[in-house]
């Protein structure tokens, strides 16, 4: 749904690193290098960002559209 605040396994704080990670990967950087830069070393934490899909961005579109349907 929305990026987890912490790693499920070890509890490292990762939520604040997601936006930078996804932006840099979208711009074409190598994901493994970005993870190294962000100081995410353990594989439990790396898979958290690597496998995350921000589904809330898809769901929120319905709410954005819904606003226009509501009576003023």
């Amino acid at each position, binding site marked *: 749904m*929305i990026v987890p605040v912490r790693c499920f396994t070890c509890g*490292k*704080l990762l*939520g*604040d690193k997601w936006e930078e990670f996804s932006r840099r990967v979208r711009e074409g950087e190598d994901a493994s290098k970005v993870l190294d830069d962000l100081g995410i070393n*353990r594989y439990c934490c790396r898979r958290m960002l690597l496998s995350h899909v921000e589904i809330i961005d898809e769901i*929120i579109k319905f709410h954005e559209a819904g606003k226009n349907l*509501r009576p003023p």
Partner: protein
Amino acid sequence: MNIQIIKKNDISLRLLIEDTNAAFMNTLRRIVTSEVPSMAIDDVVIIENSSTLQDDFLAHRVGLVPLKTDLDTYNLPEDCTCKSEFGCNLCRVSLALEAETEDHTITVYSSHFKSENPVVVPVSDRIPIAKLAPSQKIRLEAYARLGKGKDHARWQPVSMCAYKYLPIVIVNTKLCDLCGDCIKICPKNILTKAGDKIEIRNVLDCTLCQDCIDACKKNPKALEVSWNENSFIFEIESTGVLTPERILKGALSILEGKLKEFLDQLVVK
């Protein structure tokens, strides 16, 4: 006991500890993970939530946000003089979160929290808590208190606390034919070829996996991997709530308290 700092920064600390034993190292590790208190949100009162995230989902996320901890000012709720379930200002900090948006979608970050104590604030300002579509709104009040890792993982001050034996890697130059198989297989790149012999670069990184021994085709093997049973590499990585030094100091004073209590009980009998 001899302690040497190998690596140190804001959140992590790596020590070489000599002249001790595994029992002591494990005691230290277990106290760090489950007994050293830190601050986290425990109760959440949701006044209004029209976001896409349900109340319990939101409360769970808010609870996981690590908060900078002041161990000297606050008491554990069970030790506090107020003896109240709700807590007093020596054992509880309230944080408020209010966010709403009119015409565009926004992300609510941990920086939106307004804490009654400016010292007890989220470790990072950029943790996304929720996303709000136009005309959605969140209003909540959260109560943070000290707690221990053994009660819930959100109170654990560390994201990693581990130790390993001090590795000893020896290459027998008489048997080694420099085939290089051990260099290729080592996951930590400890071995390297230097002239006509295999050299060991950073033995502290060795994980004692012994893959190099399996890769060596010589019989008897040209390498030997062993460890010193009385020396350890101890590493601790804080979630940011406390400095690693403060966590270690806290752990040692808790251990001292436990030993004192044990001694008192022995004397009475």
